[in-house]
């Protein structure tokens, strides 16, 4: 029996409705439990002495003064930990040519970025550990630092890892059709350079880990703020030589992740290694400066691109040359080549065109390593694509909406394969654009813009269509050899009183995963969401899964939960049929009651069925199965990724005297397939948009030419704040994926993917009469005034 999702009045119709978040009360009452809330007997704290320079040979290390600090228990160097922890190399077989040197939990011979951990000080308090860490004396013999991405491969640039031969980590060229011929014969060709700034995730809760090693049981327990507990279980097991079954990763409440908590960090592995050596619980909580200098960075790209169109605005070709600097190491185990690879995969995404060339060049440099952060590569690819499309429209005098309508894949064209060789199962670009036009009242907005212009106000409208990659299959990581699970599992059981427990491999970091699971399980079984207790984030009790990243929680974890819940429903009905001497097909479960499916008449509460099964099983037929616990796993098989689509719009005003941009309103229509919880999806989209607006207007990590980090605090690294955020209107089109019964695709990254391009296009729409064009993010007041030619140095 399938669920009639299109009937909102069906029994147990929780999927598709906003239900309360089961963990909200706990968090609002301050009863959440984050890693730093956990205190274990005999616990110690670790603080790190980190490299103050971008590149140096590590000479003698003098620990005498540090050891004398009261409370210090032991101090570890890179050489010490290398004896108990094997290094890792972050490459993937399917990213051909990707190279990276072995990385240790503490730098051994060389420090390669400002903030790299060099010495670990363990003490009875964090303050004592910091006191001692400040007294560690390391003889740093400075080496030349590589900081400029574009010259990293030049002959006279020093090679950071001589054994690798050069500073090239990865390069991929993709070519489809006859690009050069298309450009040569085009009606119009538009060139542009784009730049996206270096960002970081800035989670409310910093990276946190507490590791306990019990030598008597050979068991490691890591309380860890992570998105991927099973992946971390495998990492600790492999590099610290422990069977996976003896490593338990517990991921309780997590204060935001945005992708930064899905990677292996040297200081966190060092913490685990130290726990194993000392046999005592060790806690490491990153402070804000450590967060800025050691959480992964992302998005540091420089791009040259061009587009060719015919006289009707039809896209003939797109050519993209993308460069990014990733720091001195590819980050384990996902690697730091994925972001550039995504740019190649995603440029031109919404459009039906024939000739496409894209190359990404990924180089090493002496800065904090970069890796996957919310909407990996998407904001870059969308900015390039949508920037070019808008410029082409302007060049041929066409409305930006019209040029998109002429090029987007028709809604009935699917399945199709894009010039980047991405396979789309079903998208809704035109329906989404139609809905956006209606929501924003495009024509009225154009009239308002013209009216404002008469008053000397420069307002602009920016549109950005996009695709988003969600629900990844093993084609993303597993195929390359990474032990990162693309499948996920859920166990659903009924307890004697009829309440239900669901144990899921996907995790909750504040986005509402547990709410989604509770309503899927509630509908699947036939109970109230409040009767479903959801457990996530414990490798010892939940089925093996990948965790929450790449917008997979609902699409993969949700489907596993639905199938497990439906299986439990079947088991319950089989027992009920025997007890009631009825046909299981004539029975249903609604609101925790066995009912007659046709009449809805109540036959028996689940509580009674539980009492019989668990305490009077003797009264049931001997051969009757009574497995009131069911586990199901789900993996996508037909498509490597479930692509979603959408379109965003920004309306803003540029103060041409100060360069300040005021966001007036923002719209997003997106299609994530089946919407399980409208409020959660809307808030995911809004939060994502805010993060995208941060990239467009504020966020930028600054380094000087020696590789010194210049802004390592919340005062200097500007995140988007509530006062500057516009009203956001979110709408949906639903094209469910046929790969699952649930039909859900991901929604977590759509907002971030499209917002920067929408803002860029709106700013350029506002400035076009003044002859200025912005393509370097963030669009700071100063950059805007410089583009307007208003500053003289």
């Amino acid at each position, binding site marked *: 029996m399938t669920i009639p999702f299109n009937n909102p009045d069906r029994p147990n119709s929780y999927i598709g409705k906003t239900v309360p978040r089961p963990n909200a009360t706990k968090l609002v009452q301050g009863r959440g439990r984050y890693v730093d809330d956990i205190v274990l007997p005999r616990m110690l704290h670790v603080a790190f002495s980190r490299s103050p320079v971008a590149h140096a040979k590590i000479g003698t290390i003098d620990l005498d003064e540090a050891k004398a600090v009261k409370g210090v228990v032991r101090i570890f160097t890179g050489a010490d930990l290398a004896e108990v922890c094997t290094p890792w190399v972050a490459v993937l077989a399917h990213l051909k040519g990707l190279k990276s040197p072995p990385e240790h939990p503490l730098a051994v011979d060389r420090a390669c970025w400002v903030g790299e951990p060099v010495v670990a000080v363990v003490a009875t*308090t*964090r*303050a004592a550990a*910091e*006191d001692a860490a*400040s007294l560690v004396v390391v003889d740093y013999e400075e080496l030349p630092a590589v900081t400029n991405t574009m010259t990293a491969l030049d002959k006279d640039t020093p090679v950071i890892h001589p054994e690798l031969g050069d500073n090239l980590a990865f390069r991929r060229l993709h070519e489809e059709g006859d690009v050069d011929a298309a450009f040569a014969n085009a009606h119009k060709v538009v060139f542009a350079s784009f730049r996206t700034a270096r960002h970081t995730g800035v989670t409310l809760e910093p990276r946190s880990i507490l590791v306990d090693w019990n030598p008597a049981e050979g068991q490691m327990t890591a309380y860890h703020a992570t998105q991927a507990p099973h992946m971390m279980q495998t990492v600790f097991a492999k590099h610290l030589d422990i069977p996976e079954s003896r490593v338990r990763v517990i991921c309780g409440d997590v204060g935001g992740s945005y992708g930064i908590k899905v990677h292996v960090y040297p200081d966190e592995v060092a913490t685990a290694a130290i726990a194993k050596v000392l046999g005592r619980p060790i806690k490491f909580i990153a*402070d804000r*400066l450590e967060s800025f200098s050691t959480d992964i960075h992302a998005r540091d790209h420089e791009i040259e691109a061009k587009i060719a169109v015919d006289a009707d605005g039809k896209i003939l070709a797109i050519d993209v040359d993308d460069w990014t600097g990733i720091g001195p190491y590819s980050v384990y185990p996902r690697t730091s080549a994925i972001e550039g690879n995504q740019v190649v995969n995603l440029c031109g995404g919404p459009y039906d065109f024939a000739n496409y060339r894209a190359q990404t060049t990924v180089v090493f440099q002496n800065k904090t390593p970069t890796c996957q952060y919310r909407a990996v590569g998407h904001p870059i690819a969308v900015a390039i694509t949508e920037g070019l499309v808008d410029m082409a429209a302007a060049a041929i005098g066409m409305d930006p909406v019209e040029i998109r309508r002429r090029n987007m894949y028709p809604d009935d064209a699917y399945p199709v394969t894009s010039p980047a060789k991405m396979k789309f199962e079903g998208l809704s670009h035109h329906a989404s654009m139609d809905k956006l036009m209606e929501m924003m009242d495009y024509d009225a907005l154009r009239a308002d813009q013209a009216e404002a212009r008469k008053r000397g106000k420069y307002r602009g409208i920016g549109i950005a269509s996009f695709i988003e990659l969600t629900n990844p299959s093993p084609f993303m990581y597993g195929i390359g050899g990474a032990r990162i699970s693309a499948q996920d599992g859920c166990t659903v059981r009924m307890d004697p009183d009829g309440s239900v427990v669901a144990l899921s491999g996907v995790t909750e970091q504040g986005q509402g995963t547990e709410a989604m699971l509770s309503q899927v399980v509630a509908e699947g079984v036939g109970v109230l969401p409040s009767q479903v207790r959801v457990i996530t984030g414990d490798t010892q009790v939940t089925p093996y899964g990948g965790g929450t990243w790449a917008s997979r929680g609902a699409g993969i974890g949700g489907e596993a939960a639905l199938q497990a819940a439906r299986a439990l429903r079947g088991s319950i009905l089989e027992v009920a049929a025997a007890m009631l001497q009825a046909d299981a097909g004539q029975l249903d479960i609604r609101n925790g009651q066995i009912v007659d499916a046709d009449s809805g008449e109540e036959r028996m509460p689940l509580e009674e069925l539980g009492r019989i099964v668990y305490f009077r099983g003797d009264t049931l037929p001997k051969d009757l199965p009574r497995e009131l616990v069911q586990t199901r796993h789900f993996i996508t098989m037909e498509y490597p990724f479930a692509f979603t689509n959408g379109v965003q719009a920004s309306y803003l005003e540029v103060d041409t*005297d*100060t*360069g*300040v941009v005021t966001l007036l309103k923002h719209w997003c229509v997106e299609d994530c397939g089946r919407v399980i919880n409208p409020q959660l999806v809307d808030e995911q989209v809004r939060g994502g948009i805010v993060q995208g607006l941060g990239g467009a207007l*504020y966020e*930028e990590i*600054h380094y000087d030419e020696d590789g010194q980090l*210049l*802004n390592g*605090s919340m*005062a*200097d690294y*500007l995140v*988007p*704040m509530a*006062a*500057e955020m516009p009203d956001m209107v979110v709408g949906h089109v639903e094209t469910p994926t046929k790969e699952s019964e649930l039909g859900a695709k991901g929604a977590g990254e759509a907002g971030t993917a499209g917002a920067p391009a929408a803002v860029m296009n709106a700013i350029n729409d506002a400035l076009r009469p003044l002859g200025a064009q912005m393509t370097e993010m963030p669009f*700071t*007041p*100063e950059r805007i*005034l410089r583009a307007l030619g*208003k*500053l*003289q*140095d």
Partner: protein
Amino acid sequence: MKASAGGYARAESVGHAVQLLAASDGQGRVLAGGQSLIAAMNMRLSVGDLLVDISKISDLSGVAVEGETLRIGALTRHAQIGSDPLVKTHAPLLTDAVSHIAHAAIRNRGTIGGALAHADPAAEFPACALALGATMHVEGPDGPRAIAAEDFFEEVFTTALSEGEILTAITVPFAVADEEQILEEVARRSGDYALVGLCLVKRSAGHRIALFSVGPKPILATGAMAALDAGDLDAAVGALSAEIDPPSDTQASAAYRRHLAGVLLRRAVARLKGDVA
């Protein structure tokens, strides 16, 4: 990071605080609202401080009329100043300034004395004090003294306060009839330190223009003031550009700040009622 303080003592009175500072061997640091000091300590930018907590000295707080001036106790919180009717009547520039200072939580704890003594060149209150021609009242081992705002701010985070002295109050001359006080600033986000800020006071005696975030201390733009008194706005903007030497940092270059100063002066003048200078 965890702060590393050298010690803490709560002062019972101004005299007691002065004694504690005198006994601190140069390590004494006055703790009032703590909105800059505690942040600096938490980043270990300041370590080993012997904190002298003056926050419980009740007679350092409050706003009162004193002849033709307004006396504002050093411990008066930003939020109190923002909502005080006497301040709104007699020194509306300060009322305006409060809405630009950081966020509610910081305004609830930060004090005007702390902001003035900390002398952050990007802060609003020091420039307001300059524009208003305020007087700083301090108390030290050698007794009380008064320092004109023009003589108070010396360098980044440096004032004319001697070691061991405490700022106890400021007095501000009443705004005279028809006086106008205007504050203009541009910040990246609401509550951020200004990229550039400008205070314009138009009195019968002439214009006063003070700027913040344009150098190592708030400055009185005397050239621009004279030009404005002469009724020449373009000349005032030109003079202003010449008399500031703004810094470049990750938020803005000197050239941008210089441009912004001119824009803000024009905007402030445009807000003046009646005929423009």
